[in-house]
């Protein structure tokens, strides 16, 4: 059990972080904290990609100009994570703009209050 966790710590961490992010999305009533939960969930998945690319005793994916490259981390998952980080920030920005708009319309950021206000209309 301990050995399993030690050799696969990045994956175990990813599972728990996904759980924490999901909990924030479900349980926190504040919309800003829900969005932080989305971001947390995302970074957990980035960690998975980076951990898959890692190779023990290797180097960062900078290739030598001549000679055979030794063991190094795979560049492909890194590229997809870079793209995903940038798309993630775009998503966060749109979400936050919607939150600002919701606040100016309804005067609250709490989901339960928002539901009451909308039910009264």
């Amino acid at each position, binding site marked *: 059990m301990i050995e399993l966790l030690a050799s696969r710590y990045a994956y175990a961490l990813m*599972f728990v972080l996904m759980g924490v992010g999901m909990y924030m999305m479900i349980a926190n009533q504040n919309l800003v904290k829900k969005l932080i939960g989305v*971001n947390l969930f995302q970074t957990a998945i980035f960690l998975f990609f980076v951990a898959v*690319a890692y*190779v*023990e005793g290797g180097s960062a994916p900078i290739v030598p100009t001549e000679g055979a490259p030794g063991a190094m*981390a795979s560049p492909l998952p890194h590229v997809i994570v*870079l793209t995903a980080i940038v798309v993630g920030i*775009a998503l966060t920005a749109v979400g*936050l703009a919607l939150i600002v708009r919701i606040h100016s319309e309804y005067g609250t*950021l709490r989901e339960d209050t928002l539901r009451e206000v909308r039910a009264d209309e």
Partner: protein
Amino acid sequence: MIETAVAYTLAIFILLAAVATALFRDVLSAIVVFGAYSLGMAILYTFLLAPDVAMTEAAIGAGVTTILLLLTIARTTRPSTDRLFERINVPAVIVVGAFVLVLGTLLPDMYAVGTESAPIWGEQGVLTETPSLYYIENTFSDTGAQNAVSAVLASYRGFDTFGEAVVVFAAAIAVLLVLKREVFT
């Protein structure tokens, strides 16, 4: 050996920061702890041999995201509170716990972190010509760039990066539309 010890310590730090983010009732505290979480994540990426991802995470995750979140609570409200932590929502904990347990049963079937027998390096531990190896071996002769990540990002997959720029552009337009209160009738 020292590297794994540092990686484990970082993993525990990240975990604690994530839990603190979820539990702090004050939104400002949660945002600050989330910045620390992103920083820890960036350092963990460097230990996992992904310096490019680490730099992007530090600049965008810890930097830009934090600024955007702070701007949002500056423009809206920061609820005043007398309690330090949120109340724990038991049904949500049960649902999420079941989710994590189901995922956790997959853990023994996953490859150990950093093993060369992982499928990304070829089948059954035999190093075959997988895309990863192709890019590592041919990046310099194909593109003249030494950094394989930027070579794939800007040369091999340049059109994908262009599509990514389109996504950011669309997001910027969406933000402008939402904040300028355009009315579509």
